[in-house]
Every structure is written in C-alpha cells, then in structure tokens.
C-alpha cells in the first residue's frame, strides 16, 4: 500500500501506552466507488479524538460513536455503510459506494 497515513498506528500505540482506551476502525471491503480503499483506517480514543479516515469524511462521525461502544465493551463489530443501507439517510456515502468497516479495541486480550 503506497499510502502515507499509516502514522496513525503509531498514534494508536502512543494513546494506548498513555492509558487511553483506543479503538481501530479499518475498511475491510468496498463495493462501487468507495472513497477509501480496503486497509484505510481510523483510530479513536476514549476522549472521542480521532485520526485518519475511512471514507474521506462521509461516515467518520458514526464510526467514532460505534468505536466508543467498542472501547467500552471490548467486543469487535462490523459496520456497513452505503446507499442501500437505511442509515444512508443519516450518514450515507454520497458517492454511491458501500463500505464495511471492522472496529476493534486496541489492547484487547
């Protein structure tokens, strides 16, 4: 992957070591004209601070909310966003693609 946004993984490590609850959200599948390829990721800490991008801004707000739940529960979950999804009315991808985002807690045993 010839991209340059991977330093967010270093931020995830630093946050975790500083005692924050941290979640990692990663695009695992895309259909249609999804804005960011598989492997793109977003890291979120328990303050709600986030770095990176899974969609170029379309659905980050919703991902952050889900990530805070994942930090609390420790259980990973899969999210799906796209025009076919009912949540599209709220946080859909304007470009017409669909993406699946895997959200996991960092530091889970």
């Amino acid at each position, binding site marked *: 992957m010839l991209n340059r946004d991977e330093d967010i993984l270093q931020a995830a*490590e630093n946050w975790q070591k500083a005692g924050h609850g941290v979640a990692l959200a990663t695009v*695992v*599948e895309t259909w249609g004209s999804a804005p960011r390829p*598989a492997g793109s990721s977003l890291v979120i800490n328990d303050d709600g601070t986030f770095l990176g991008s899974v969609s170029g801004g379309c659905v980050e707000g919703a991902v952050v909310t889900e990530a805070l739940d994942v930090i609390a529960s420790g259980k990973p979950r899969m999210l799906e966003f796209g025009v076919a999804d009912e949540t599209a009315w709220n946080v859909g991808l304007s470009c017409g693609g669909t993406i699946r985002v895997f959200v*996991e807690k960092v530091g889970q045993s």
Partner: protein
Amino acid sequence: MKLETLTQVNAERAARRPVIVVTDVANGEQRLVKAKDIATDPLGGELAKQLRMGKSGMIESGGKKLFLNVYAPTARLVIVGAVHISQALAPLARSLDYDVTVVDPRTAFASPERFPDVPLIAEWPDVALPPLNIDHYTAFVALTHDPKIDDPALLHAFERDCFYIGALGSRKTHAKRAERLKAQGASDTDVARIHAPIGLSIGAVSPSEIAVAIMAEITAELRLPKETAKEQAA
C-alpha cells in the same frame, strides 16, 4: 488488536519491512505475518500476492472470512544523475507515490532551480548513498553517463538488493560498463540485474517519454510476478 501486535506492526514499519495482519472478522482473532515468514505460512500464496499488489483485502480460507491488512513500505526511487531525463522522472515518480531522491556531485546539475521540491544531494555516491539506507523497496537508476559517478552507485545498489536497478546507455555502452563493474568485483548475477538499455521499449524519444518508459519498467518489476516481469523484459 493486542497492544503487542500493534507494537510489532509499528516496529516492522519503522524498519521498512513489510508486514501483514490477518484478522478473522467473525471473532477478531488476529495474527501477524512478517515478510520473512510468508513463504512458510499456510496462506503463503495469498499473502505473497496481496503484498506484491500492495493491497489489503478479504479472502476466504477454511470456511473463515479473513481480512489481510498489508503494510508495505513506501517505495523509493533514487536517481543518480541530475540530468534532463531526471527532471521529468522525479515529478512522475512522485505522482506514483515514490519518495524520490536525486544524487549528483556536479552542483551545476544538482541545483534546486532544476529540481524544485525534490531532495537533492550534491555529493559523490560514496558520500551520498550510504546515509540513504537504500533497501529492497528502492528502485535505483543511474543516468549520468559518467562511469566515475554511475559505476560506484551501481555497486552500492547491488549490495542493497534494490528491487529495480536501471542504467542509461546503449547496448555497447552497457557491455563496457559490465566489464568495468566485473573488474571491480561485481558478479555476473549482479550485472544481469541491471536493466539496460533502461526502460520498456516504447520508442521513447523525449526525456519525458523516457521517464514514462522507466517508470513503466519499474512498475512492472514492483507489481508483476517475477517470471512475468522477466518475460516482459525479454
């Protein structure tokens, strides 16, 4: 993701070694595969293919849906020779996401006016190259036409196992170069690694067209399976 896994991913990335994280998306189970362990991994074929393409993605294996997250180092291009072709090659390579460095001891050539926004090192190869930590994820081209500059640069590229090594010059020029390099200790295998004449054969004439031919050849070397890349070159 376990903190230990994340720490290892970050350490491998910092060392510019590829790493792949395999996640079972049904339950979040994860393991990390380092580049050196891919060949012996049960998913070796799939992992090698994803790494070559530099692409992350889902696969199905043994009834499980697995996400392969590929972390490949940013590819670099080291250009020896701040010549006319390099002026076209540097921006083209950057648009393809390479980190580009230009080396040329001749300060009249290696001037910021000729190479805006490109890291330039106006030193001889023996001084300029070692600090660059050139590695396998580096494409290396020697374009000066001057043996005093190109030859030591190429010897350095052999040592660092660059994934692509190319040198400007006709077949005749290259035959002489091969003799000189062997006299300085290069093996037949080393010399055979040099792409010369440089670039895919597309009838390139202008410096920009030659730059396209070079980047096309580098892309083929990066992305195609090894055997196919050789056939293309033949």
